[in-house]
């Protein structure tokens, strides 16, 4: 009996402590909680624009924040990978936090647009860009990027090198000499497959692709050397593990230097897929006017030109191209762009990635 009483007493004692603590824990659920957790909700603090991007690495974010400040824009960059930024924008559509998003390619933006997250806006520089590279309504093109097959030019002469992706698995000399991806989470990998599968469009085939097309995918995975986590393709080329693989155009020059290798790229007769990075206004922003001004500023020939010079990119803005690295401009001038039906690709990419991950990746 006394034991029960004591147990009861000890519980009362603990109750007091628990209530105190629970009060603490519960209190944190109101926005006005302690210290760090008490700053204002997003969007409420002055005129700071929240900008989502996947193009903030390698100093881009810092550069842009500083340049924007000079131009009178206070911005806060939130960096995330392409897929993460896309999912975040879609998840937040009922209570948007971002005001502007940029850097994501046309595939991601068409996905975001389909979820009704973007507000139509025609920037002041709309006339200086090729409208074909975007939807001409909600998102607008900034930077072009070619998705290429590159090879070690110290090992292969131009004649001996592959002429197209399909050579990699149909010709014995390239088998196991090329790096193949181990996941389709990245934009570059998805664009490579968009380029390959688009050639085998067949509306009666599985997911709009003929059996022949899926066979190519199967062969790609069977004959390639799987990528190694946290080991760059260029590092593997240097050590002789592989001789070729996928690469976006903007990184080649810097990597050649860092890893001391020479790389040439393949231009298949059908052309190469282009990824076009875009900018857009987020629907529901309470700083619409400011955000529009920012878009007008960032996409202008002057700023895009400076950005291109700084980061070796290829601006879409025709007037900005004069400021870009001449080698880059020449490369894109000669480049044959692959004709890809992006609506078809966007509609099917999710299902393609799923099928490839489940059935063909070994």
């Amino acid at each position, binding site marked *: 009996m006394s*034991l029960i009483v004591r147990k009861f007493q*000890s*519980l*009362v*004692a*603990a*109750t007091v*402590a*628990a*209530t105190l*603590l*629970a009060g*603490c*824990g519960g209190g*944190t*659920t*109101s*926005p006005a*909680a302690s*210290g*760090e*957790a008490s*700053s204002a*909700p*997003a969007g409420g603090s002055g005129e700071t624009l*929240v900008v989502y991007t*996947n193009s*903030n*690495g*390698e100093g881009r*974010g810092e550069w842009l924040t500083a340049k924007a400040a000079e131009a009178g824009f206070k911005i806060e960059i*939130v*960096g*995330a990978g392409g*897929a*993460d930024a896309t*999912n975040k924008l879609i998840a*937040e559509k*009922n*209570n948007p936090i971002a005001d502007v998003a940029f850097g994501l390619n046309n595939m991601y933006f068409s996905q975001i647009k389909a979820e009704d997250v973007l507000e139509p806006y025609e920037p002041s520089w709309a006339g200086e860009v090729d409208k074909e590279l975007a939807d001409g309504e909600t998102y607008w093109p900034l930077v072009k990027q070619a998705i290429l097959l590159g090879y070690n030019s110290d090992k292969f002469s131009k004649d001996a090198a592959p002429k197209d992706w399909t050579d990699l698995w149909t010709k014995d000399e390239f088998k196991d000499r090329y790096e193949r991806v*181990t*996941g389709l*989470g990245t934009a570059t990998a998805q664009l490579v497959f968009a380029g390959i599968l688009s050639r085998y469009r067949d509306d009666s085939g599985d997911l709009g692709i003929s059996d022949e097309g899926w066979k190519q995918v199967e062969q790609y995975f069977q004959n390639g050397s*799987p990528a190694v*986590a*946290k080991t*760059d393709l260029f*590092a593997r080329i*240097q*050590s002789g593990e592989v001789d070729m693989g996928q690469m*976006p155009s903007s*990184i080649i020059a810097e*990597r050649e230097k*860092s890893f*001391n290798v020479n790389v040439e790229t393949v231009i298949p007769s059908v052309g190469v897929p282009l990824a076009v990075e875009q900018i857009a206004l987020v629907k529901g922003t309470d700083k619409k006017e400011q955000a529009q001004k920012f878009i007008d500023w960032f996409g202008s020939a002057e700023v895009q030109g400076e950005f291109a010079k700084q980061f070796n990119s290829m601006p879409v803005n025709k007037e900005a191209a004069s400021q870009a690295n001449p080698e880059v401009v020449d490369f894109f001038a000669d480049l044959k762009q692959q004709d890809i039906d992006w609506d078809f690709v966007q509609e099917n990419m*999710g299902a393609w990635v*799923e099928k490839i991950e*489940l*059935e063909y*990746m070994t």
Partner: protein
Amino acid sequence: MSSTPVRAMARSPFVLVVGVVLTWFIAAFLVWPNVNVLIATFFPDGNFSGRAAEKLFSSQRAMKALGNSFLLAVALSITVNAVGIFIVLVTHYFRIRGSRILFLGYATTFIYGGIVLAAGYKFIYGDKGIATSLLLKVFPGMNPAWFSGFFAVLVVMTFATTTNHMLFVANALKSVDYQTIEAAKNLGASTWTILRRIVLPMLKPTLFAVTILSFLTGLGALSAPQVLGGRDFQTITPMILTFTNSPTSRDLAALLAVILGLATVLMLAVMTRLEKGGTYFSVSKVSSELQKQDIQNPVANVAVHVVAYLLFAVYTLPVVLIVLYSFADGAAIQTGQLSLANLTFDNYVRVLTEQSGLRPFLVSVVYSALAALIAVGGLLFVARLLQKYRNWVASAFEYLLHIPWILPSALLALGLIISYDHPNPLVGGAVLTGTTVILLIAFVTVKIPFTLRMLKASFASVNSSLEEAAAIMGAKTLYVFRRILLPLVLPAAAAITALNFNSLLDDYDTAIFLAHPLVQPLGLVIKANTDGAEGTEGIANTFVYTVLLMLITGITMYLVYGRAGRRSGRKRMPAVPGTGGTLAGEVPPASATSVFGEDSKVPAVPAR
């Protein structure tokens, strides 16, 4: 300890209050967001779609990867226990020369992990690694890529995940009653018999808890298989992550996560059942402090020393190399060519002079500390109640609190967003998205299962007669909780807090979706500087951040253990009168508890 009727439990106001708060928390932050996200995933248009199961079960790759994850989980449960118990005994039970140094070596897993750890092992045993080149000189015919596949993944993950043993099993070992051991010795029991029949059985609750954690680590293995698994041993987690990121395939991710979750719950049920009914505290009237044991057999003694120091080398070499490589340029890191002449501070200068500077570090430290303290503080009471009352209501609560183990953190974050992006009565009509609180909530919730498991295990080794004895001697109930119960579980609670803190510091998966744009934690900065285009700087930055995080986590562990160790060491001298435990029974409750409290403290300082 026997089962308590629900009605009796509900009579206590303490239980009622904790119950109400707990019910609200579970409903608002564990059940509702995750039900929402699961509904959105499995019923995309309001109709259930069985497509996910069909797709998954017909995929050879998915089934093989799932099988590999399970294989790894089961294998790890065994190997981590074997290695973990060995290093705990070597540092805390047997008299081994240099056990203090050994402890520091084994403790390196406290401060780092993930992809860099896997890379560290690759620097040594990979095809261009140091050990491999040495071996090739001796056996020119061997395969340089010997360290890959299941074997390599298992080895690396085994050595990487003994942290919980070093903290919690070591802690439990200290509360083993030495008098029982002495009695057994007098009756002629061998070292081995004492270990098997007396010491290990006392450690059971903690061993069960850490076994569940090892199982879970194996199921969720990500970076070690990616770096070392090669073609033949890939696990399911990379696929779950890819599918989580693709809205059209999210149902597959959720289904896979639920399968892994159910396996975890099953494991939990088995362990809970095994744990039931045992007595895991000393029943002797007067227990005394554990003393280190000599290994009588000279051959065994030498063998144990050799193995202990070999393990020491295995544990410390990767850390040394990671620190060295963090001064090398990115190309050298990836091609494995380290030359001392090329080591510079460039990487550190680049990382530390960024515009964002130290702010993200501060943000992460504050968030992680708050979350770690709230999780442990809140669950102290919950764990005690769940350990004390055994009935279906308590079990239901316990299982519900494990929900965060079931879903990947990206899905938990998405669930919170879609549940709280509009005024919601569950949180008093507030909108949580876009505030700084939502990330704190997520941080607290993801740490609940681990915190609860370990706290519950440490309460299981508390002898309830202590509390009763103190009460009989007239101690007030609050006093009993504060001076008897709390000191006994405090070492474990401190360890849990420190581990929670460390693991949240570089979180990316949750923060990417929930962080306030003006208060961005470190994980986002790390990701921006290390990912995407991997390149040379990215890799070098990864190593620099790892070393910086090692510093922070190292300091945390020192603050929790190192200092506490020295303080208690000083206090212990006068407090424990040599071997004379006989007086302890007559000592008033206060000093009795202080002796107990220190008994179970501080792995950092080996007992004399």
